[in-house]
């Protein structure tokens, strides 16, 4: 009887393998989806062979790049060193990007006194961004670029960009989380509370990432 069960289990495994091959055939090779909130550091070596040749890798540390600011001055992201960053990639033509700007304004106001800053990175035509930033009275720092801003997105592992996406770093420049799609306040506060604990030395990065991953899943289930 045990032998039968074992053989049956092995055969069922064959079936599972068949199903696996079938369902992975058409699986998109892409960054995470809307609401697929990914804490950084979850990236793993591409283990699935040719199925996923373009798996992006979220860097562990803030990559270095420079873009023009609102005045046209080339500004390095390193000029924000020492602050926790909320780096928001957006474009003027993107409706969900526009929707989350009031939240980013609020976060800037609430967190600027706690050593954090929002940095908007507009991947768009400069004139349109400037006009838009004036109209919406964007109060946080903006960096603006086209191909160079796409290169910056790629440096975060988002090589085929979708907008918006937001990267959270702690004050030491460690990438804590990367959130794709429109950001909402509960998610932002959850991530920032973990960033703050990291900054205060209360927890280590793996624990922060785990708490973010679990917290975001819980938020997702509750909506």
């Amino acid at each position, binding site marked *: *009887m*045990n*032998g*039968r*069960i*074992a*053989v*049956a*289990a*092995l*055969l*069922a*495994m*064959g*079936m*599972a*393998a*068949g*199903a*696996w*091959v*079938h369902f992975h*055939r*058409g699986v*998109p*090779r*892409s*960054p*995470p*989806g*809307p*609401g*697929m*909130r*990914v804490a950084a550091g*979850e990236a*793993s070596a*591409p*283990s*699935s062979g040719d199925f*996923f040749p373009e*798996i992006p890798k979220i860097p562990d540390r803030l990559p270095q790049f420079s873009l023009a600011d609102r005045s046209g001055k080339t500004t390095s992201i390193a000029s924000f060193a020492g602050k926790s960053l909320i780096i928001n990639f957006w*474009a003027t*033509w*993107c*409706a*969900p*990007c*526009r*929707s989350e700007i009031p939240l980013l304004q609020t976060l800037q106001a609430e967190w600027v006194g706690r050593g954090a800053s929002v940095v908007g990175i507009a*991947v768009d035509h400069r004139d349109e961004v400037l006009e838009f930033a004036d109209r919406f009275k964007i109060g946080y720092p903006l960096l603006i670029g086209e191909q160079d801003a796409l290169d910056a997105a790629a440096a975060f592992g988002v090589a*085929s*960009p*979708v*907008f918006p*996406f937001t990267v959270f770093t702690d004050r030491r420049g460690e990438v804590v989380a990367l959130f*794709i*799609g*429109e950001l909402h306040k509960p998610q932002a506060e959850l991530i920032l509370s973990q960033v703050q604990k990291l900054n205060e030395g209360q927890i280590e990065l793996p624990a922060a990432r785990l708490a973010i991953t679990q917290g975001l*899943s819980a938020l997702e289930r509750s909506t």
Partner: protein
Amino acid sequence: MKILLTATLLLFAGVASAKPWWMRGAVTNEDDFLPPDVAFRVAASADDNTIRVRWVIADGYYLYRHRMDVRAESPDLTTFAPAMPPGEVKVDPYFGSQEIHRQQVEATVRYTRLDAGAHPLQIKVTYQGCADAGLCYPPITKVIYPQRALPAPPAASHPFEGVAILAGVVAFLLAGLLLRKGRKLDLPAA
């Protein structure tokens, strides 16, 4: 026997953890973000004076009508403005009312050629869309060759897919037979 079962379970675990990183912890999410070429598929066909461009749009995704365009790419080709059915109206607090297309849409483009046949028929299509889940794709531009008839959907398949599915089905049946063979049928006493 226990070792064999344990090994089997471990192998299962191996298969389960072979998921790409971006699917971990989010497997239950139904709004998986699709790569742009899967979310929005485009193909074109042509007869003697009209090119038809068809977009097939995944569920939960849409294209902005005013950002869809078809232009001539071959040097001897002249195209007229594409004709497209009206879209669904989407009201955005910032953009106002905009027309969008979901599911599928076809644009018809009348064309003339100066020296028919001297160049391959080539057009440039542009489109931009978003997902309801709250993200957008940058504008996409593609140069495509309209076919005489709409191409059949590509029959992409993994080389072992057929074998694996067949093996799976056979395994399923065999497993069922094996388990059934050892089963006693307990009928309630009459």
